[in-house]
């Protein structure tokens, strides 16, 4: 089986102000899962975008089946049997799941689109990835994890020989990851070559065969996937990391966030909990458990039917973001592209957004002051950029995420809700963010952290709340919160009711 199928030699790509790739080599064999590892901004996505026809290299060549090939468009890549799941979703929100699955090549009869066949095919693909949605559902109405599963199904539809996946697990919970891995193994066994990008180191040993490490746009090593995590980290970051979850628990103070009986019909019911000063409370659950909905309702981004929210003793009016912020509440949303960032604006502008009001005196904004503050937080988070003036759109995914977090760190709110805060962030930078969370709680702030990354929730929370089907189903103190315990709670409630 394992003969070479694709080879990349000396690939170089320059963007204005950055040398994104500086001579990358990569060798891909059939029937292997090849993991690309590297810090945020190392050049992973740029590399795969040149294989998929989204970008064109400045120098270097791509060899497929021993012959050099030119991949100029997405169509070229598809014809060569290369399918790609991008880090950022490439779905059309207003079209249905079925149409997105056959985007660009709908089944046709007599020249007309055959809607029935389209939905039939879609159903098959959805079954394959174990996603239980109607092909007629609008993509825009799906949660982010379901969208990711649709993306995966869409790539499968191509029956490719080379399948590239750019951080597919970043937004998935454990059970979806399991499903995904089953699919990947199956494909690998059929001889498909898979390129897999992830920042979850534990996944590498589970699914990978070979690892190529990228650093600063260069390929620095090719190692087997069973290389110890510490070693991988060292190769990637250039130094070892002693503690992945450096949580320093505090003595909790008075309750800063109190949620009582929060209910919105069809989304969540009777959610009550509190978060105290100095505490990090984790909120775990399966995809679609309703965690995001609860967080948005608390913050005032969405309405709710009944219940109440108090921050620092002040009762919040439903649907009043401004009031929530004034009371000292902040929310880092899960969807950075849709809800977090002004993609066309620069980094300074984005980082200053939440604190815009505070930087305003008599109607005028202190932009110099904002810039200074932005520079500071960008430095703290290690945002890899050509300057504060770089358009956020052109940042790497992980660095975009850092910007979303950074703007709230600047706001210095007393209660910060983080929804999937480290999605797509590399190990090194994660530790930086955890340190920042620690310093928040050390200064008496409270943090509610929603995360689908179980080790993270467990490693960083002082208490873990578990949600299932819109209800809080349990609470575990830090020392009892193991992956099994959390999953047991999250799944127990679901299994009885879900129709497969």
């Amino acid at each position, binding site marked *: 089986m394992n003969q070479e199928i694709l080879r990349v030699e000396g690939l170089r790509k320059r963007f204005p102000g950055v040398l994104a790739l500086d001579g990358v080599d990569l060798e891909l064999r059939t029937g292997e899962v090849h993991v690309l590892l590297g810090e945020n901004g190392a050049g992973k996505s740029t590399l795969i975008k040149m294989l998929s026809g989204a970008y064109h290299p400045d120098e270097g060549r791509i060899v497929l089946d021993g012959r050099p090939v030119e991949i100029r468009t997405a169509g070229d890549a598809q014809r060569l049997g290369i399918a790609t799941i991008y880090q950022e979703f*490439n779905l059309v929100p207003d079209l249905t799941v079925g149409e997105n699955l056959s*985007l660009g090549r709908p089944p046709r009869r007599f020249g007309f689109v055959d809607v029935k066949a389209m939905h039939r095919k879609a159903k098959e693909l959805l079954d394959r990835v174990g996603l239980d949605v109607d092909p007629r559902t609008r993509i825009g109405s799906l949660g982010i994890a379901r969208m990711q599963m649709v993306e995966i199904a869409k790539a499968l539809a191509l029956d490719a020989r080379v399948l590239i996946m750019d951080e597919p697990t970043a937004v998935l919970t454990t059970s979806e990851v399991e499903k995904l891995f089953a699919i990947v193994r199956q494909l690998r066994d059929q001889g498909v070559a898979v390129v897999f990008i992830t920042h979850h180191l534990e996944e590498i040993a589970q699914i990978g065969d070979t690892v190529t490490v990228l650093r600063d746009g260069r390929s620095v090593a090719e190692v087997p996937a069973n290389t110890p995590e510490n070693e991988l980290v060292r190769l990637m970051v250039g130094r070892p990391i002693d503690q992945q979850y450096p949580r320093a628990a505090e003595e909790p103070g008075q309750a800063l966030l109190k949620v009582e009986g929060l209910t919105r019909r069809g989304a969540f019911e009777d959610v009550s909990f509190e978060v105290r000063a100095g505490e990090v409370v984790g909120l775990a659950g399966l995809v679609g458990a309703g965690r995001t909905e609860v967080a948005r309702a608390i913050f005032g981004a969405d309405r709710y039917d009944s219940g109440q929210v108090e921050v620092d003793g002040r009762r919040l009016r439903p649907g009043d973001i401004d009031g929530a912020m004034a009371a000292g509440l902040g929310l880092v949303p899960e969807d950075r592209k849709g809800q977090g960032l002004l993609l066309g604006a620069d980094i300074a502008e984005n980082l200053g957004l939440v604190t815009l009001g505070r930087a305003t005196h008599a109607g005028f904004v202190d932009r110099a002051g904002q810039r200074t503050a932005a520079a500071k937080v960008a430095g703290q988070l290690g945002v890899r950029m050509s300057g504060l003036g770089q358009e956020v759109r052109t940042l790497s995914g992980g660095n975009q995420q850092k910007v979303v977090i950074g703007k709230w760190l600047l706001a210095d709110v007393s209660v910060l809700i983080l929804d999937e805060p480290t999605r797509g962030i590399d190990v090194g930078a994660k530790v930086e963010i955890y340190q920042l969370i620690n310093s928040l709680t050390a200064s008496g702030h409270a943090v509610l952290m929603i995360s689908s990354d179980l080790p993270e929730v467990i490693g960083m929370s002082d208490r873990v709340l578990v949600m299932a089907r819109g209800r809080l189903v349990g609470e575990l103190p830090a020392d009892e919160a193991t992956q099994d315990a959390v999953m047991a709670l999250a799944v127990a409630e679901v299994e009885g009711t879900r129709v497969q």
Partner: protein
Amino acid sequence: MSSKTRVWLSENGALVALVVLAVALSLLSSDFLSVSNLLNVGVQAAVTAILAFGATFVIITGGIDLSVGSVAALSAITLAYLSTTSGLPWPLATLIALAVGVVCGLANAALIAYGKLPPFIATLAMLGIARGLALVISQGSPIAMPDEVSHVGDTIAGYLPVPVLVMVVMGVIAAVILNRTYVGRAMYAIGGNEEAARLSGIKVNRMKLVTYALSGGFAAVAGIVLASRLASAQPQAAAGYELDAIAAVVIGGASLSGGKGRAFGTFVGALILAVLRNGLNLLSVSAFWQQVVIGVVIALAVLVDTLRRRSAN
């Protein structure tokens, strides 16, 4: 109300507004609800509707076409000039006139797809260019349409006006293209997320060529219908119709940011505009107040729709 009905209504909100408007008018004016008047409304909606069908394609891709009125005039002038002044047989002249519309659309698309011009600017330029060429060709004077073509403005069997027929046919064509063809679905994809469309292997530039060419072609048809109704091609015909056409599309539920829109909605939008103008004439509303009333009713019609949709959610 069954959930299907509700979904259907929420997708066809403009229709509700149209019905309300029609009921109100038939109460206010006894002349409104006669067959002959309703056919008048149909005839009066025809040109805007046909232009608007073409604009629907463009708007669904997230673009805008300001040139439709001018292109309509240019096509009609070309037809009249070639057959009347140059003596070409009318079928050939008609074909060339349609081709002129398509070529204008292609020129728009080339500027947008390859020149990366914003659609607003490219089609604004074409608005001037096509109008200017219409004036140059006609030397500023109307040109008589060939009689054979002018029948397009007539009435069949004494009651069925041909413009209404043409409007319906063009509407069906637009609906089929949008719902059932590759190009149509690609338009939605491009308007919904151009980058995703491109990365899914859709040839975005080529699709844009088709889209604007369709808009140009529809404009040519509209121009011919308009000139036939007047039995003469006017160089200043359909001036300012672009805003009406776009309004019809947006009233019909499309979004100017792309990805949304339906031919039926556009049809209803064009009818709302025509019913409104017809009704104000029937009610003898003073000329100055008419513009005010039209403005208010357009806002109300769409407002009712959005409020209803919000309360449904």
